[in-house]
């Protein structure tokens, strides 16, 4: 009989998942140094005891025998998709010496020639920004490929809520509409676990859920009503609903609009604010029958009418909104969207009546407006040529009904916290709290100037970022006014090539960079273009400070604030290092310490006595420890967090529902873009662009057609993508368990099409098909018939089709790669938000 070894180590370690960006709190069961199980943390306010299939399967990646465990250098100078890099293992010393030598030379000549790319957005993912800033380059992007991420979500959210993101208040909402917002699966701040549970509870309590989407996604399958819509037409439907609400039903929240928005601001005949001699924006005061500054004490602002001010006619912004939407009749919207006019009218009425305008609720001892309607929208609605217009159009529904940051309404995530809150900017409009601002703000905007950065963000002053423009600039920096080229790219936790559109074009753009360093847990498609690959830690081997960042990875509304730690459950394999530690090491080698610590102290607002001192060297753990202690007090260092995992405190009602307590207003009329447009026209003409398109810089949203609407004929279908509950970006597609799961799910690794559409084309379920775009791109895949697809649409879920040489060894992921259908062209980019148009005309043929 074999003796059974006695278990020495048997622990459940609390930490934070990173198989997607939701930052679920998990308990990891470790036995004798081996991870055997992962479960949700029942004490977590974020996700409770629930986790998803991706989180469960994290241990497959941990024990993947194909992990990168040694630094490697490329021996084949030729680069490209499918080309063998000829990897050769090298020592850490050789790798770091090679990299440090190049970094030193770049910093001495022109630090802008370094590009730092990382999708490590949590914990010390901030290191990317801090390290790059200390180095001296503006070329840093700690995000995803950025084509149809939150490009047109964030600018609207910053302006309308003062936050990075926004969610429905499922605790109190009675009527929720989702436009292209994949609750239940979206792996980002839509919290597919905690928020989905709230949504399910709300449904049980009687909330009506209406999902507007070309695809009957997970949320739609749980909804009262799925409204199939033609892709890229959401703005038309939203504006038609606003028209019905304002002009047919005569419903709006006058108190909210007058006190909390710029609705009463007077607009002149040219569309600009009317100002007094001091430059103050004027409103029309009913009591005195005269124009007054918008913030005049005791003024009673009117929302409608025409008034004579400064010798000219002026009208309140709200009146212009009412008039503007009149052209969006439900019948017109039906033609654009395919949603019947009667449905649009009915939904508008249901939504407006459910808003209970005038009603209040008492919470936390405070009487607050109660607006139990929430219209949420996300990437599906805005991943289009005119994405920003879609966002503002849909948000208008919340705004006119007063359902913004009040109980039951549409909530920004963490606009106000224990130590932060928004301020009042120019013209009385809201400026988000600096503490939660993590990207460029649309208001007050950055002045457009000649570009200095490789993503030419200077030419997109209304966008939060402009990563989708990076490949174009890399290919031809001079064209964008840049006097340098990128000489080195450092890439961390980001399969940039696979998550980009048009991989062959983007690979060409990356080939313009002579030296690429990629950190990798597994060899991926981007790493295959690198000159040096460095082994990185798996999520269960990492220490990261505060992965549940308050600006994104925390539930909105009532509940608790919570601060957590991601801690190592097991040691990494010998020779594998957390990329953060490697960057500190490189910083030391190139003499960056003083600047790095200074930037850390300043950017993270580290207080004495925990400030990093440049006469000593800190490890990653020590830096996190100082950061924690500075934020939470000397007793709350790394050891405290490892032991206790979470610091939490209840939110005050002013933090959960801040709008009634805030003075700064939000815009219903985005006047400042009228000033940006001529500046951009002049600047881009000076740069040599003859036709820089500024036509989207309008103060009120419109529906404008995507380029794909122009192409017809045999390309009679629109291809779109959708998320899958068990995959996150390209990151999880190589997880063997999840790959097997995908194999058994008929809607995965396939193109979905409506059975009636298929029948008209003589196609059948399971057919092998070629999907070809009018621009010559194609993918081959299996056809899956599903009634839950708009008849004009092909849905290609997920981001399958890894072509990496190493990945093929163990995954065999044969699914279609949707992004390969998209052609990189500035014509497909929203010139305000930089969203990339993710709907494309295709024809489907049996192979």
């Amino acid at each position: 009989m074999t003796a059974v070894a006695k278990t020495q180590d048997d622990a459940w370690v609390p930490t934070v998942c990173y198989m997607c960006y939701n930052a679920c709190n998990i308990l990891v069961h470790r036995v004798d140094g081996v991870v055997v199980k992962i479960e949700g943390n029942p004490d977590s306010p974020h996700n409770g005891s629930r986790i998803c299939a991706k989180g469960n399967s994290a241990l497959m990646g941990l024990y993947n025998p194909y992990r990168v465990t040694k630094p490697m250098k490329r021996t084949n100078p030729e680069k490209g998709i499918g080309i063998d890099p000829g990897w050769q293992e090298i020592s850490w010393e050789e790798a770091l010496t090679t990299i440090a030598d190049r970094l030193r030379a770049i910093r001495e000549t022109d630090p802008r020639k370094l590009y730092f790319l990382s999708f490590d957005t949590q914990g010390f993912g901030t290191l990317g920004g801090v390290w790059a800033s200390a180095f001296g380059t503006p070329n840093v992007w700690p995000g995803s490929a950025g084509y149809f991420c939150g490009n047109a979500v964030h600018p609207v959210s910053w302006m309308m809520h003062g936050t990075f993101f926004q969610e429905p208040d499922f605790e109190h909402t009675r009527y929720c509409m989702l436009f292209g917002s994949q609750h239940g699966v979206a792996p980002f701040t839509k919290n597919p676990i905690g928020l989905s549970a709230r949504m399910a509870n709300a449904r049980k309590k009687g909330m009506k859920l209406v999902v507007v989407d070309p695809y009957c996604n997970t949320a739609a399958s749980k909804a009262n009503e799925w409204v199939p819509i033609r892709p890229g037409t959401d703005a038309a439907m939203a504006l038609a609903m606003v028209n019905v609400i304002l002009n047919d039903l005569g419903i709006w929240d006058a108190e909210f609009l007058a006190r909390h928005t710029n609705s009463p601001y007077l607009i002149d005949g040219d569309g600009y604010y009317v100002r007094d001699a001091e430059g103050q924006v004027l409103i029309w005061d009913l009591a005195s029958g005269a124009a007054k500054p918008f913030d005049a004490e005791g003024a009673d602002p009117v929302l409608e009418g025409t008034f004579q001010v400064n010798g000219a006619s002026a009208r309140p912004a709200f009146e212009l909104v009412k008039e503007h939407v009149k052209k969006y009749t439900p019948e017109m919207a039906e033609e654009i969207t395919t949603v019947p006019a009667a449905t649009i009218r009915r939904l508008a009425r249901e939504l407006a009546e459910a808003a209970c305008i005038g009603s209040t609720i008492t919470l936390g001892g405070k009487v607050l407006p109660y607006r139990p309607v929430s219209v949420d929208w996300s990437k599906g609605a805005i991943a289009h040529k005119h994405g920003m217009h879609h966002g503002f159009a849909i948000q208008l529904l919340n705004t006119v009904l007063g359902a913004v940051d009040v109980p039951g309404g549409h909530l920004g995530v963490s606009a106000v916290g224990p130590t932060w809150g928004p301020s009042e900017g120019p013209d009385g409009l809201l400026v988000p709290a600096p503490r939660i601002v993590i990207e460029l703000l649309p208001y007050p905007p950055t002045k457009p100037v000649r570009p200095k950065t490789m993503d030419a963000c200077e030419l997109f002053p209304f966008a939060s970022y402009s990563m989708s423009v990076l490949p174009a600039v890399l290919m031809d920096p001079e064209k964008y006014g840049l006097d340098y080229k990128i000489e080195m790219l450092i890439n961390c936790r980001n399969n940039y090539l696979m998550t980009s559109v048009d991989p062959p074009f983007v690979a060409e753009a990356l080939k313009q960079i002579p030296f690429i360093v990629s950190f990798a847990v597994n060899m991926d498609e981007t790493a295959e273009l690198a000159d040096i690959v460095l082994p990185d830690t798996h999520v269960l081997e990492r220490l990261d400070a505060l992965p549940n960042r308050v600006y994104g990875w925390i539930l909105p509304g009532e509940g608790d604030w919570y601060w957590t730690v991601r801690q190592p459950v097991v040691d990494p394999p010998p020779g594998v290092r957390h990329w953060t530690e490697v960057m500190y090491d490189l910083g030391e080698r190139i003499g960056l310490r003083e600047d790095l610590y200074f930037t850390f102290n300043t950017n993270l607002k580290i207080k004495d006595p925990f400030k990093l001192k440049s006469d000593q060297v800190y490890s990653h753990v020590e830096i996190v420890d100082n950061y924690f202690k500075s934020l939470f007090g000397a007793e709350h260092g790394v050891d405290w967090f490892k032991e206790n995992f979470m610091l939490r405190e209840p939110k005050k009602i002013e933090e959960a529902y801040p709008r009634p307590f805030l003075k700064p207003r939000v815009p219903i009329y985005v006047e400042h873009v009228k000033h940006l447009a001529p500046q951009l026209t002049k600047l881009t003409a000076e740069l040599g662009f003859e036709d820089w398109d500024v036509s989207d810089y309008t103060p009120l949203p419109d529906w404008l057609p995507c380029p794909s609407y122009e192409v017809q004929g045999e390309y009679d279908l629109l291809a779109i993508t959708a998320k899958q509950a068990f995959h996150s970006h390209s990151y999880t597609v190589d997880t063997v368990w999840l790959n097997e799961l995908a194999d058994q799910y008929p809607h995965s690794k396939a193109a979905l099409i409506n059975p009636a559409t298929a029948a008209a084309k003589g196609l059948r379920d399971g057919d092998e098909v070629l999907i070809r775009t009018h621009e010559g791109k194609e993918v081959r895949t299996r056809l899956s018939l599903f009634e839950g697809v708009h008849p004009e649409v092909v849905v290609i879920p997920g981001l399958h089709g890894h072509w990496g040489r190493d990945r093929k060894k163990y995954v065999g992921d044969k699914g279609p790669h949707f992004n390969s259908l998209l052609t990189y062209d500035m014509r497909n980019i929203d010139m305000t938000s930089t969203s990339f148009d993710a709907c494309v005309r295709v024809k489907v043929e049996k192979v």
Partner: protein
Amino acid sequence: MITVHYMGNMRNYTHTRTERVELPPAGDLDLKGLLALLVDKHGEEFESRLFTVGGNLHNQATVMVGEADVSDNAGAMEMKLRPGDEVTILTVTTLSGGSC
């Protein structure tokens, strides 16, 4: 005399790490006045990293007087500078910032 230090990306606009600024004869220069002098000297691209349209301090910019970060302080721009003061200006690019 006031010493101004530039960190990180700001050096790409000033082409220097440190410069010294003469106090006006009357001796009364506030922070706003100093930054205006620097904008005059280094141009609109420098200005665009430091201020938004409308004159707010840019959310990616940090200004320190001595050891104190004054970026978030209401009234900091009216702060009178004294001979010997050291002012540091830096920007940190995207998805950083935020201390919680």
